[in-house]
């Protein structure tokens, strides 16, 4: 599924470079050791997010090697710790590496992306060319995902925040022409055909140029080949060489560069909302309560802020996770 590939590329481009810098300099400040949280686990003073239930036992939370996922894994682990679990995080290169361990039960929690996970499990079961079961609508996607999950696994509530393909324009352009959605941009393009910036695969991928043309009826007069939601795309937009470009919904640099993401009002993009993939034993009780409470706070703005705190302001995922739980009154 194309949806998963650009994400990895984008986050490695935008995030990994920063993450590497962090590895070198991040530990200087307050330490960010999660052991502070364990003081809360003395049974009487459980925080509200546990829903009055007490958890116990070892829980390994997996993170894929890009900063957003690492931060989310830290948040999940800290929330679980607060409810009494002996939670820790472990980083993996990719889903291909950690998913077998999740199935085996070695890993009990992963911050996942609904549509990409749905397609991943689907292709594992039905082959690489199996038609996608993910949808632009998150509820449809979750239903499909639940249907194909093995009984040993479950997913909890999906967050509102997504990390998926999106299209951005200059903020000044959007304001001047009253454009907030892709449909409005398509209407505008009828009289002013647009130049699109995107990765090399964009002209041939349904979620990109063909999708804009067929789903939205957008008039595109030219394609400027750049990168998947990276600095070249942002530069092409800010310098006016392109009018609309492919970005990612949770990328904090988009806003920073004076760009604005347009609403995908016809659900062209598959619904890659954040969703916790857990072992069935954690699908009820304190763990489920805690992770659902966390997810209810993870809207789009919050997710972007979390990424900004790590990728731009150079916090460690651990520090940022602790701050988030404190700010949201979760612990």
């Amino acid at each position, binding site marked *: 599924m194309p949806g998963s590939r650009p994400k990895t590329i984008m986050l490695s481009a935008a995030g990994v470079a920063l993450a590497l810098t962090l590895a070198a300099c991040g530990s200087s400040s307050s330490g960010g050791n999660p052991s502070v949280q364990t003081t809360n686990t003395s049974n009487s003073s459980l925080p509200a997010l546990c829903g009055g239930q007490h958890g116990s036992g070892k829980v390994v939370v997996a993170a894929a090697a890009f900063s957003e996922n690492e931060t989310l894994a830290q948040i999940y682990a800290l929330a679980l710790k607060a409810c009494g679990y002996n939670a820790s995080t472990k980083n993996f290169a990719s889903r291909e590496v950690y998913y077998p361990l999740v199935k085996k039960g070695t890993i009990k929690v992963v911050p996942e992306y609904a549509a990409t996970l749905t397609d991943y499990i689907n292709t594992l079961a039905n082959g690489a060319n199996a038609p996608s079961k993910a949808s632009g609508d998150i509820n449809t996607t979750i239903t499909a995902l639940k249907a194909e999950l093995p009984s040993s696994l479950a997913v909890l509530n999906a967050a509102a925040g997504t990390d998926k393909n999106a299209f951005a324009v200059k903020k000044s352009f959007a304001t001047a022409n009253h454009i907030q959605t892709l449909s409005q941009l398509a209407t505008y393009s009828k009289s002013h055909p647009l130049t699109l*910036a995107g*990765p*090399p*695969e964009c*002209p*041939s*991928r349904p979620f990109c140029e063909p999708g804009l043309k067929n789903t939205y009826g957008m008039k595109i007069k030219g394609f*400027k*080949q*750049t990168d998947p939601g990276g*600095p*070249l795309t*942002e*530069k*092409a937009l800010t*310098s006016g*060489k*392109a009018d609309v470009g492919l970005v990612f919904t949770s990328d904090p640099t988009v806003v920073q560069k004076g760009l604005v993401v347009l609403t995908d009002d016809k659900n062209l993009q598959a619904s890659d909302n954040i969703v916790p993939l857990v072992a069935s034993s954690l699908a009820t009780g304190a763990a489920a309560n805690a992770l659902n409470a966390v997810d209810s706070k993870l809207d789009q703005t919050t997710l972007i802020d979390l990424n900004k705190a790590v990728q731009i302001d150079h916090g460690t995922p651990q520090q940022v996770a602790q701050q988030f739980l404190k700010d949201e009154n979760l612990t």
Partner: protein
Amino acid sequence: MSSYLLPAVGVVSQRVNNSTWHQITTWFTTASTWAWHGENGEAGVAQLFWEHVWISGLSLLIATAIGIPLAVALTRWRRGGLVVTSVANAARSIPIVGVMLLLAVGPVGVGTESAIIPLVVFAIPPLLTNAYTGIRDVDPEMTDAATGMGMSRLQVTRRVELPLAIPLIATGVRLAAVQVWATATIAAIIGSGGLGQLIVVGYATQAYGEVYGGIIVVAVTAVALDMSLLRAQRGVRRRYGSLAPIEGS
């Protein structure tokens, strides 16, 4: 036959198996591959070839316009040799991909200019070193005689030194041209088109036939360019005589 070409480009980690071989032959035998536009309006080899000619040609032209006068100026200076070596080594050691990407996201912007600037820098060393050596190696008796005949400094340069240095200058131009042609492939990374587009788009869409096709087209055209410039160079040498072996660098 294609496998020995592969190490030339590091992007392909896949072994040539039967299905890849099929993709390659399909790519080569599809008519729209070679057209100006492909079936879905994407750029075909004909268009990419012209973009490649444009990017490399302009880079070579600018590099020549800088390199040759610089070489002439430096032969007038006692420490010129040191400068030539330093400039050439510095220019050769700059990682072009990095410069290209930084220019594209920075001051120059996404477009052909960001590709041409580093290519010019890259083309200068062979032009500069060959022109410098060619002029400096002109027999002093020739320039003395010309001066004795009443030629000005500029006339000596134009009518004696440069013509005598032409065989070596031609060598520099050939080497620079082939280098630029092969290196202009990376311009596609920043969306400047050219034959590298086949490799970049093929890789992004997992159309490995197109990737191999792009590699082969670039390699074959580079060899063809080298051979035709070598012929032209022999013609030049017949006309202007030779001071140096034709393979000099």
